[in-house]
């Protein structure tokens, strides 16, 4: 399984390499106390992965860009970006999640003296009033 994440908009397009991304979790958040279909629906993406160090003069991985994105204040337009997560398996695009107005809720990096690489957790949400723009596709050959 290969996970490719691309972030565009906000003046800093970047791709989180498939070597880095380990898991994706997409949830639709509905209030648990609702008695009938609610209007208050949100959607969350949680990405987890590795922070790799460059060797042999390779370019550094773009994980730092996520940290910088998490530091963009709410007044700036750049805090909303377009995020695409593609899950490709055996030439098939199993899932393609698109969050066109995603913002960072949490971003964490963890480094230990055992693992050798760092790990990151990025929690994103689609701007709630733009929920209709979230796209979940899949089941077609990947190009």
């Amino acid at each position, binding site marked *: 399984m290969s996970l490719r994440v691309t972030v565009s908009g906000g003046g800093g397009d970047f791709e989180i390499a498939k070597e880095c991304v380990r898991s994706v979790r997409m949830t639709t958040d509905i209030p648990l106390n609702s008695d009938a279909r609610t209007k208050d629906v*949100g959607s969350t993406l949680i990405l987890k992965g590795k*922070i790799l*160090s*460059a*060797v042999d003069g390779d370019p*550094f991985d773009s994980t*730092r860009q996520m*940290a*910088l994105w*998490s*530091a*963009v*204040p*709410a*007044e700036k337009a750049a*805090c*909303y970006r377009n995020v695409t997560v593609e899950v490709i398996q055996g030439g098939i695009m199993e899932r393609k999640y698109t969050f066109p107005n995603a*913002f*960072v*809720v*949490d*971003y*964490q*990096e*963890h*480094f*230990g*003296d055992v*693992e*050798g*690489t*760092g790990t990151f957790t990025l*929690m994103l*949400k689609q*701007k*709630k*009033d733009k929920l209709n723009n979230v796209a979940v596709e899949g089941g077609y050959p990947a190009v």
Partner: protein
Amino acid sequence: MGFRLEVTGGDPIKFDERAIINAEFSSLSPHDSNARATDYGMELKIWGKMLFSLGGQESDSTLNVSKWSRLPSEDALCYRSAKLDVIAAGNVVRQFELPHAFVMDYTEELDDETGVGTFYLHMKQKKDQTRQVKLEGGFAGE
């Protein structure tokens, strides 16, 4: 993977990879927000070993961290500059700098089994100064 933590602005606090076990950086905002929140903060958490010094050839900074964690809020020294470097394969993978860090939590644990004690230090950037946090990395260095 090596770590270097240096806190300046008071009694010297310095740890390296011999002492630090885990390090964590978090950029956190409220989970119930409908759009990007203004109320976001950044923090560093460090877990490490309390390496006591034999004959004074090394200085163990945990005592200074403990003093820092007990400073009252009236004291200007309770805000200090904390810098953490994460180094791997001759590269500085990350360099976090919190110029106005204060202690959120400090715990020490010692027992009669492990030989060395462990500490946990949680620091946070003063929230109105979150924009001053520097998130560097991706350059050569050891």
